[in-house]
């Protein structure tokens, strides 16, 4: 790299739309992923609000049952496949993983851009499906309903199939990057924990995603060619689909949560000015979770008719997930001990993660216990548990990361008090919306219900009102994030006092990140006085 190339930062150098669309810079690709996925988050969020509006009162509130069934399918499919799977690894991971290990880019920059366009192609197919005849199968596409539904199931699953390749290629790129491009001195045990988390995620992406690819292809073949694979009427096995589907989709849940955990492991030490408690335990527990994630898919199927022996094994294996997860929660909390704690917005989100993810994790115990799951399965208890993990966990992690790295990505600080008010609205709104759903579930309200008996009306009303707080919080957030870009003033290179490599370079970074490849001599969270 010549000195001349270092004049502008990556945002302005080179200039022009064409330079963005053909860029091989991991930072720009990360931002393009971020813009795309956040757009889908917005769309998926609109559907969520519409679902809650319909459920505000029993009976018809706003839309017909068929429309409702389509809307919850859109909400789930968009949020899962187009938002929560790509958002942290492909957006923030793409941006920060190379910088955090002292690399100029990922190992295969062109492949990285290809992944993005494959993602766009898959997302376009899915969006086309939604605009054609929609889909009313739920994001799980359970057979034989999905074989018989007269909606655009083929198109939407084809979209999922294509997006899968994007996920696989991104994962592959990251694995190679971590193995081959670490700067001098960056041993595995000096890598920031976010890198460990993205690395564990990448392994799952590469190993599990092909299975959903095969599954959606089989589903498409069955619908188009009437080959009996999953539909018993054609001689297939309906439960086989569930095995295939969850063999991917359970590990996929860890594709979603591990990167969020990685962000929390970055934010807490910085804002507590403490060395992370139990670095190795957190790093290896990510790998342990990735490993166990492949062996627990059957816990989605305790009442599906699979054998009792399978149920027993899946129940006991699922229990093991609790251990690495709890170690992480324990270690994050212990990191606060004897620190110097600042409650800036990233830290507020990190502590909210601890609060809500703990609820999400503990309610998983209810669902892993066989006899209790028989009652709770397919009720709102599962919906609440899932949202506490995914939104209370991953989305809180994402928001912690967005606020934490925003100054680095754009060179601008956001307005701290706007951010705190927005956080308050989201925290209240989230718990109002979803905590009520634990009660609804225990009281027996099944999920995917357009209408419900009157005894569930009160809790549903509270849940819907909570969703409006969420709307207000996210609207304010969109406003202050966008506004910050137009504010005068420039963020310092290291506004939070971070010790990892991304804070040692300019905000925003230059095109090739580092003027020269750095040499690392210490650990990433080296805070604290040895003899106090």
């Amino acid at each position, binding site marked *: 790299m010549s000195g001349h190339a270092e004049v502008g930062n990556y945002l302005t150098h080179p200039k022009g739309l064409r330079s963005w669309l053909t860029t091989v810079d991991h930072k720009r690709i990360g931002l393009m992923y971020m813009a795309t996925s956040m757009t889908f988050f917005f769309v998926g969020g609109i559907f969520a609000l519409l679902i809650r509006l319909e459920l505000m009162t029993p009976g018809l509130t706003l839309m017909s049952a068929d429309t409702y069934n389509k809307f919850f399918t859109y909400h789930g499919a968009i949020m899962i496949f187009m938002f929560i799977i790509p958002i942290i690894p492909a957006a923030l991971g793409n941006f920060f993983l190379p910088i955090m290990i002292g690399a100029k880019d990922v190992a295969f920059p062109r492949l990285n851009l290809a992944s993005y366009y494959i993602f766009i192609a898959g997302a376009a197919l899915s969006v086309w499906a939604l605009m054609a005849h929609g889909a009313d199968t739920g994001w799980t596409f359970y057979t034989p309903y999905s074989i018989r539904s007269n909606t655009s199931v083929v198109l939407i699953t084809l979209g999922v199939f294509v997006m899968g390749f994007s996920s696989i290629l991104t994962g592959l790129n990251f694995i190679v990057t971590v193995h081959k491009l670490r700067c001098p001195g960056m041993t595995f045990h000096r890598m920031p924990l976010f890198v460990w988390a993205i690395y564990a995620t990448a392994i799952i992406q590469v190993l599990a995603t092909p299975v959903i690819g095969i599954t959606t292809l089989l589903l498409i073949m069955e619908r188009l060619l009437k080959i009996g694979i999953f539909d018993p009427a054609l001689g297939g096995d309906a439960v086989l689909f569930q095995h295939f589907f969850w063999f991917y989709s359970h590990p996929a849940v860890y594709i979603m949560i591990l990167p969020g955990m990685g962000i929390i492991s970055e934010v807490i030490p910085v804002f507590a000015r403490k*060395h992370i408690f139990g670095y190795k335990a957190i790093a290896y527990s990510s790998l342990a979770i990735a490993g166990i994630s492949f062996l627990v898919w059957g816990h989605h199927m305790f009442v599906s008719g699979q054998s009792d022996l399978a149920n027993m094994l899946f129940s006991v294996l699922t229990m093991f997930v609790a251990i690495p997860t709890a170690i992480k929660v324990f270690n994050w909390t212990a990191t606060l001990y004897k620190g110097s704690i600042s409650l800036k917005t990233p830290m507020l989100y990190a502590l909210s993660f601890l609060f809500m993810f703990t609820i999400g994790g503990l309610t998983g115990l209810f669902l892993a216990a066989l006899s209790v799951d028989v009652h709770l399965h397919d009720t709102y208890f599962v919906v609440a548990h899932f949202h506490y993990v995914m939104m209370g966990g991953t989305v809180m992690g994402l928001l912690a990361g967005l606020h934490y790295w925003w100054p680095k990505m754009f060179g601008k600080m956001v307005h701290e008090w706007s951010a705190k008010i927005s956080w308050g609205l989201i925290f209240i709104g989230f718990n109002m919306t979803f905590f009520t759903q634990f009660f609804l579930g225990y009281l027996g309200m099944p999920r995917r219900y357009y209408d419900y008996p009157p005894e569930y009306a009160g809790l549903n009303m509270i849940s819907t009102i909570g969703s409006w707080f969420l709307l207000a919080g996210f609207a304010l957030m969109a406003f202050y994030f966008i506004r910050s870009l137009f504010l005068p003033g420039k963020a310092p290179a290291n506004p939070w006092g971070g010790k990892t490599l991304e804070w040692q370079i300019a905000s925003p970074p230059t095109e090739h990140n580092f003027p020269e490849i750095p040499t690392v001599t210490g650990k990433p969270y080296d805070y*604290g006085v040895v003899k106090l």
Partner: protein
Amino acid sequence: MLSLLLFQWRLEQASNFAPVVDRLFDFILWFSIISFLIIVFGMVLFTFKYWRKKIPENRTAYITGHTKLELGVAFFLLVVVMVIFYWGWVDYKAMKNPPHDAFEVNVIGRQWLWQFQYADGKMLTNELIVPKDKAVSLIMTSEDVLHSLYIPDFRIKQDVLPKSYTNLWFVANRAGEFPIFCAEYCGTAHSAMLGKVKVLEQDDFERWQMTGKLPVGKRTMDHGQGTMDQQPDVTVGEKISLADKGRGLFASKGCTACHSVTGAAGVGPAVNKIFGKEVELTDGKKTKVDENYIRQSVNEPQARIVKGYQPIMPTFKGQISEEEMNALIAYIKSLK
């Protein structure tokens, strides 16, 4: 305060399984509440105690971890989750093994209603009438897509699959009416695929079986649906029992040509005294003769052939309705 809240939110315990499931539920709940409070207490305490305004940022402790403490937490948790697993498994086993003398009802789910077919030939729609304090076993199948029969007050649920049978059993220990939901998404009217269980005192139940009449004017547990003095949707005139209907079908479909019902040798195996027994197949494997095996032998006769017989039976796929299949199975079960 918290237990008051729990009491407030306690769902009715109307079956033998309800208190069993709730006991483990409560155990996990209390363990969760305590663990959650420890984490939140630690978080809040540390945040206030080590506030940036009190502790300068260059005066924090250098602590990198505590392996023994971490292992201790892991080990303690391992013990707790293994207790939860084992407890759940033991209770679940009981839910999966109906007693042999259970009162059997066939269930057919279809978009979007439930049909309950009784051994004496009665057929009810969206209404399951059962005796109190007696084991009831449901043998369930679907005519179209997946469904799931869920009775929250009984704490039981089981998916209902097309072309095969799944089971559910319970002892209802409270008279009254309890809602039945479909818990597996099945299309447009999924949330309207509702039914109810009517639990009758045993003498009322016997009277209903004999006369088709329900007790009149008796107050029952009210679940928003009023009292149960209206007549249920009984298929009137269906006097013939399920097994008798099956006997007729067994003859009219031509089964008798090859399958004896007395144990005499024939082209195919005799079908008396076989239900619930194990038979050896041509490939040396053993299989139990249950509802799923009989169903498969009718629809795909070549799939599992009993040792010593030829694979020559034609398929009856598409020629026998779900009701007829239930009748045939009931007949084979009745052959002693």
